[in-house]
């Protein structure tokens, strides 16, 4: 019918891009009397709208609207398809604890972390305040241990296809994994738990979720990172700022400057640029310490200490050797279990420097303590022996008191003798270890200046004038210091002053000048007996 | 109680120890027959019997104890001089030993019920003990009459009595020695108090109080003496303590008897206390006194042992058999000249003291000083431990291995010496090798020594053997043994036993003539067989020398021809020695009648095989008609390791025992000759059979010449053995070729320095082979 055709001219169907909705427009000129839901439905059908997509209620209302009004265009959504549900990847949900830490770290990084001086920032009162933030203690890293639970994982959702208003399928989209989980360091259990496989720092942002065994600090260790306490190796791309601390079980490598900070590692510590310790910087290593230069710092190396350019005003203790190959040592004190090799020793200004070679403080200190105890015990024993002797010479064998006194003295003497024997045994064990691990020798490549005192086990050598190298200063079989130049040995006293010295024998005493060494050794090469004896004496 | 109740170990110990004692006993008994006056020996025999009896009574072996006790009683009489040991007495004693032996065998076989000795034998022996030459009981010991059972086992286990009369040195630790002075005065004080109290015993009114006082005194004495561990005195003091407990219930008469014995005991203790101050103590036979003191205090003392009221303690001591020793004289003085010494009168009889007694006492006293038992108290005994033979065997095997390795090191040292240019290394290696060599040698000797035992172990049985033989054949034979202390390896002892028995029987049976025949020949009617042993270099030689009729060449020769061992013609060419050797061949017996002694058991050929094969020894015979025969057995000290010369033919090497090599020569052609087809070699004017190792051992290397001749001596016969090479001398460890059939004269195998195996040439077999070759050809 033409009328019907006419009506069609007033009707228009518009869809959205996804074909999920169809909106019917009824023109203002449309003959409202002819508009019935049925007519509209027929129209929509002619357009190919699927029966089940039709919203009959909307159609009815639209028709009513059109009838009620004229001269205005009316429209309504009359057909609805079903949008697809897109697929979801598996999702890692951190534990509450980790989430808390993440929030904390993010909150902090969003603050202005301008490195204001901590001294001005935190007065003691403020520190006591709970609101105060310890910027040193708050690490910027989430450190986890192997086996720690990190969170749970939700399984992936494949999604569901949708249907457009014409009955066509709208395929569900598979969204890509937003993050990749490193199965090397993170363990996904069958019951969807997530555990750390190894200790390290948690990488929780970016596209990779992992527990990195090596802590990579791209910039400085400072207010942005906080102190670092890490169960593995640490690589610092920048430097280590004043008063910050790195404590790691693996190698610690720092590319730039270490300031008045503290670094401790069970393995090597490598500072590519150098250490400017400002008298408080400390480095402790279980193995080697390597640095470009070291200034005003304390270094304690389990093995060697290798410095390329110079050592200035440092306290260095190395159980192995100290090697500054071609560089210079000025001021401070150095103690090495084995040889010390240096380019220039001392300075033209005759800065006092002390070199102690062939000594291992962890052994020499107990040895010195034993020596003191032994001397005391000896004195006591001879006192008692003298008393006993005088008592005996005047003794009346029938006097039970006198007999008892002699027996008590005898008993005390034998107790002391036993103790002396034990001290001697302990000392001998330490000496054996010293012989095994210590080797006194100082090699100077270029020059030694006056002001340097070189201590050996029983003597000190000091040069009153500059003396050019290369030469090696060591002890001969008799324990006398000798100078070896190109294989020619001669007594050191020909060119230097050799004085008796028993510094080593009394190391670690209360008035020791080597107080810097008296830090408690992490691992004693001596034996438990020694400290027992020390306590007894105290 | 049955044997099964005993710890088998205890029983085994008993069997071992007492078994040894029994063997010793037997040989000693035979010796005593020849020297009945040897009191040391009588004492020794008595002690052995006593010990056996003591252990047996501990094990409750009643039947064994009975016969041992009877024999001991008889011996005791001999010991005290009451009887002398003539042949009839010896027969009885030996019969007793036989019974003991049977009982031991039964024990060893685990039998519970031991054979009971013939009652007659027990009675006879006991009678011997009760007899005395003049009819008087010298010790007035009525208790020792036959059939009185009370004494059986009464002093069993009371070992110190076996050493009665000897003096021991008291050893105390310094702290106690320090107090001895106080001890002595305390003991003396206690004793004098005790004696005082004992005197008061007669007063029946105060007897109860006296008894209590005595008990307390005795108890304190026991405590004190026990503290010082002077067991001899403790025994007496304890006996006193016990005796004083029951005084109340005794009659007057009985109290008197207790008092007698108690006073006597006090006097013994007093004397001992005196000795103690010098730290010495004489061991006294106080067993009887203690026993009778006990009996008296129980009121059980037999009336015969009652003593007259006025008997003094000395007489009591004599009566109870203590005084012989109780008179112990200080060693510094000559005991025989002690004027104080008077034998106490025998209280039960009025007859004067019998003649033999003082003599005997003197003898005992005179013997006291050199008495080996007395010496034992001062010289520490050699310390010994029992080691299982198996352990020694394995030690010996290990030493064998060590010797092999030592040889190997030696060889390596030689190699190093030729190969290396490092003179230092060579020298060190050589020094080390030679040290190792020496040490190994020492170890070998030391280990061998652990297995060494004296031949006496074996010889001990023979006097009895000869004695029995003599008795049965009616001959008079004495066996003289020399060198019984020669030590040889245990295995040698074991292997040597049977052959020696056989050879001795042979000598006694066939060698020694009847007394009449000997007298007719102008010889002592009593024949002598000497068994002589001794070391000769690395060998042990045993000779059995009889002074009998000697071997008869004619008779043996005739028999040999009859048996087809040689022809009449050959016989004529043989030396006497060679003819005599025929008796060692199988089935050869010249006795017209096989006697039931030497004829039974093994034949001479078995003897020879035993000696040659098992002991690697040799047996030679020398004889002179009418004058006697000497059989010589020569055996190496040990059979496990020996020095040898290593020789080679082609690729095979052989070891020839070095002791059998007299020389090694490289003969010139003119030294070779032959008799018939048999090759011979001339050596310094003598011709000896020559054999080729290649032929004997059937070796293939036809082309390897044999330029060397090893001259081997065996049984005074020389044989040459041609070999290709002589490698050198080496200690070899013999590994038996068990289960391997021997091809040719081979006695075993050994491992060489280079690890290879060499065969050991059986010298005896080789020499025999040469002879048969020679004989058949000739």
């Amino acid at each position, binding site marked *: 019918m033409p009328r019907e055709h006419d009506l069609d001219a007033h009707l228009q169907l518009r869809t959205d891009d996804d074909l999920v909705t169809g909106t019917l427009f009824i023109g203002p000129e449309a003959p409202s009397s002819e508009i019935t839901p049925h007519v509209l439905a027929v129209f929509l059908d002619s357009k190919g709208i699927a029966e089940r997509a039709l919203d009959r209620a909307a159609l009815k209302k639209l028709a009513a609207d059109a009838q009620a009004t004229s001269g205005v265009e009316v429209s309504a959504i009359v057909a609805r398809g079903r949008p697809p549900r897109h697929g979801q990847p598996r999702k890692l949900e951190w534990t509450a604890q980790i989430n808390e830490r993440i929030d904390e770290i993010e909150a902090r990084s969003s603050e202005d972390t301008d490195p204001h001086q901590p001294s001005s920032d935190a007065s003691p009162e403020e520190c006591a305040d709970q609101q105060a933030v310890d910027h040193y203690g708050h690490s910027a890293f989430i450190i986890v241990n192997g086996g720690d639970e990190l969170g749970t994982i939700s399984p992936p959702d494949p999604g569901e296809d949708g249907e457009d208003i014409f009955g066509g399928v709208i395929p569900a989209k598979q969204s890509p994994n937003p993050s990749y989980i490193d199965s090397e360091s993170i363990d996904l259990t069958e019951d969807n738990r997530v555990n750390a496989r190894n200790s390290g720092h948690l990488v929780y942002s970016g596209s990779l979720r992992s527990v990195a065994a090596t802590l990579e600090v791209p910039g400085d260790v400072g207010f942005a990172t906080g102190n670092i306490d890490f169960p593995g190796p640490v690589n610092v791309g920048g430097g280590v700022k004043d008063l910050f601390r790195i404590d790691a079980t693996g190698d610690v490598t720092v590319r730039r400057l270490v300031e008045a900070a503290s670094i401790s590692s069970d393995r090597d510590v490598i500072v590519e640029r150098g250490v400017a310790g400002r008298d408080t910087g400390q480095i402790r290593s279980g193995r080697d310490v390597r640095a470009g230069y070291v200034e005003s710092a304390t270094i304690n190396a389990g093995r060697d200490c290798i410095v390329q350019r110079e050592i200035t005003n440092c306290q260095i203790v190395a159980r192995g050797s100290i090697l500054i190959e071609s560089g210079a040592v000025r001021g401070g004190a150095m103690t090495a279990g084995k040889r010390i090799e240096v380019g220039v020793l001392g300075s033209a200004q005759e800065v006092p420097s002390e070199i102690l070679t062939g000594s291992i403080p962890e052994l020499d200190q107990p040895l010195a303590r034993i020596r003191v105890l032994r001397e005391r015990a000896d004195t006591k024993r001879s006192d008692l022996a003298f008393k006993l002797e005088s008592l005996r010479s005047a003794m009346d*064998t*029938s006097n*039970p008191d006198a*007999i*008892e006194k*002699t*027996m*008590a003295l*005898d*008993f005390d003497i*034998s*107790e002391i003798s036993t103790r002396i024997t034990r001290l001697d045994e302990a000392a001998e064990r330490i000496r054996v270890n010293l012989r095994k691990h210590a080797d006194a020798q100082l090699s100077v490549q270029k020059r030694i200046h006056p002001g340097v005192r070189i201590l050996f086990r029983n003597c000190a050598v000091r040069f009153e004038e500059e003396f050019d190298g290369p030469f090696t200063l060591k002890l001969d079989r008799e324990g006398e210091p000798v100078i070896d130049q190109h294989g020619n040995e001669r007594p050191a006293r020909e060119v230097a002053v050799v004085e008796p010295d028993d510094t080593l024998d009394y190391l670690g005493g209360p008035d020791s000048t080597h107080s810097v060494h008296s830090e408690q050794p992490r691992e004693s090469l001596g034996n438990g007996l020694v400290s027992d004896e020390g306590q007894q004496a105290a | 109680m049955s044997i099964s109740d005993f710890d088998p170990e205890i029983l085994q110990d008993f069997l071992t120890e007492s078994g040894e004692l029994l063997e010793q006993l037997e040989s000693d008994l035979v010796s005593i027959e020849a020297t009945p006056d040897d009191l040391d020996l009588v004492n020794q025999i008595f002690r052995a019997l006593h010990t056996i009896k003591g252990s047996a009574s501990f094990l409750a072996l009643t039947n064994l104890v009975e016969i041992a006790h009877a024999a001991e009683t008889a011996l005791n009489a001999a010991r005290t001089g009451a009887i002398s040991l003539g042949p009839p007495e010896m027969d009885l004693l030996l019969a007793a030993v036989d019974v003991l032996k049977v009982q031991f065998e039964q024990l060893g076989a685990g039998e519970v019920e031991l054979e009971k000795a013939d009652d007659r034998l027990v009675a006879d022996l006991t009678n011997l003990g009760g007899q005395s030459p003049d009819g008087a009981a010298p010790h007035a010991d009525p208790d020792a009459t036959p059939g009185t059972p009370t004494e059986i086992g009464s002093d069993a286990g009371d070992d110190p009595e076996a050493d009665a009369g000897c003096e021991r040195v008291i050893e105390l630790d310094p*702290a106690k020695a*320090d*107090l001895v002075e*106080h*001890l002595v005065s*305390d003991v003396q004080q206690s004793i004098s108090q005790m004696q005082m109290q004992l005197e008061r015993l007669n007063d029946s009114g105060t007897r109860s109080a006296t008894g209590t006082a005595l008990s307390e005194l005795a108890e*304190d004495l026991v*405590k*004190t003496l026990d*503290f010082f561990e002077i067991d001899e005195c403790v025994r007496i003091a304890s006996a006193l303590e016990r005796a004083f407990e029951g005084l109340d219930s005794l009659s007057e008469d009985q109290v008197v008897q207790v008092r007698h014995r108690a006073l006597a005991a006090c006097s013994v203790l007093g004397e001992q206390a005196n000795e103690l101050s010098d730290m010495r103590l004489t061991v006294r036979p106080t067993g009887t006194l203690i026993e009778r003191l006990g009996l008296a205090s129980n009121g059980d003392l037999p009336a015969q042992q009652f003593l007259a009221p006025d008997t003094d303690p000395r007489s009591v001591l004599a009566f109870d058999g203590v005084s012989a020793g109780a008179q112990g004289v200080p060693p510094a003085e000559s005991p025989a000249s002690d004027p104080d010494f008077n034998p106490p009168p025998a209280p039960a009889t009025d007859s004067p003291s019998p003649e033999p007694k003082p003599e005997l006492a003197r003898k005992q006293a005179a013997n006291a000083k050199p008495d080996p038992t007395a010496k034992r108290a001062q010289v520490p005994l050699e310390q010994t431990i029992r080691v299982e033979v198996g352990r020694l065997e394995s030690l010996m095997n290990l030493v064998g291995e060590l010797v092999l390795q030592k040889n190997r090191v030696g060889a390596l040292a030689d190699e190093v010496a030729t190969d290396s240019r490092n003179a230092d290394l060579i020298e060190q290696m050589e020094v080390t090798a030679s040290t190792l060599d020496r040490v190994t040698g020492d170890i070998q000797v030391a280990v061998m020594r652990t297995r060494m035992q004296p031949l006496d172990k074996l010889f001990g049985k023979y006097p009895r053997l000869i004695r029995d033989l003599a008795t049965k054949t009616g001959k008079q034979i004495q066996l003289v043994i020399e060198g019984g202390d020669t030590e040889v390896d245990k295995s040698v002892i074991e292997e040597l036993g049977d052959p020696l028995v056989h050879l001795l029987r042979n000598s006694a049976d066939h060698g020694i003539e009847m007394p009449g025949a000997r007298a007719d020949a102008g010889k002592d009617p009593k024949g002598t067989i000497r068994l002589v042993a001794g070391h000769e270099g690395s060998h042990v030689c045993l000779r059995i020398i009889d002074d009998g009729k000697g071997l008869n060449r004619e008779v043996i020769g005739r028999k040999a021809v009859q048996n087809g061992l040689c022809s009449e013609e050959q016989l004529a060419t043989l030396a006497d020695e060679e003819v005599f050797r025929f008796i060692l061949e199988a089935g050869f017996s010249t006795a017209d009648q096989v006697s039931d002694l030497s004829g039974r058991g093994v034949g001479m050929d078995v003897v020879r095989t035993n000696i040659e094969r098992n002991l690697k020894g040799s047996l030679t015979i020398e004889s002179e008609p009418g004058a006697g025969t000497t059989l010589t057995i020569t055996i190496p000290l040990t059979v496990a390791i020996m020095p040898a010369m290593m020789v080679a033919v082609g690729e095979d090497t052989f070891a020839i025992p070095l002791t059998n090599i007299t020389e090694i020569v490289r003969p010139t052609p003119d030294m070779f000759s032959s008799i018939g087809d048999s090759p011979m070699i001339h050596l310094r004017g003598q011709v000896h059979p020559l054999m080729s190792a290649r032929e004997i051992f059937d070796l293939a290397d036809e082309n390897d010449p044999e330029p060397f001749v090893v001259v081997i001596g065996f049984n005074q016969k020389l044989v040459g053995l041609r070999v290709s090479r002589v490698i050198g001398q080496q200690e070899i460890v013999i590994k038996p070729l068990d289960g391997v059939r021997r091809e040719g004269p081979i006695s075993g195998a050994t491992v060489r320095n280079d690890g290879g195996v060499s065969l050991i040439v059986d010298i005896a077999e080789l020499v025999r082979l040469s002879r048969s070759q020679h004989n058949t050809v000739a």
Partner: protein
Amino acid sequence: MRIMLIDDSKTMRNIQKSVLKQLGYTEIEEACDGQDALSKVAAFNPDLCLVDWNMPVMDGLTFVKTFRQKDKSTPLIMVTTEAEKSRVIEAIKAGVNNYVVKPFTPDLLSERITETLAKVSA
């Protein structure tokens, strides 16, 4: 092994205690005189007593005599001085098993103890 030390001197007891500890005996009771010891033996039930001779209140010999009336077997070692040596026999009769003379070395005391215990257990 329970051992009682009966001595009026603390020093002596300490010395004895140290010797006993070296020998591995740790159950030790101390008494300062014979009377004190008698009051403690029932509860402690010692396996060995070391008894000083000279003590106030009740001396060692009296203690031994009293103790032995009830207990015949527990080993007693008397600690004496040279002065009392002549009376040791008296102590032995009273029932001591061994004795040691002051001054003694720890070795000697330990030897005496071992020896006494060995003899008693034999």
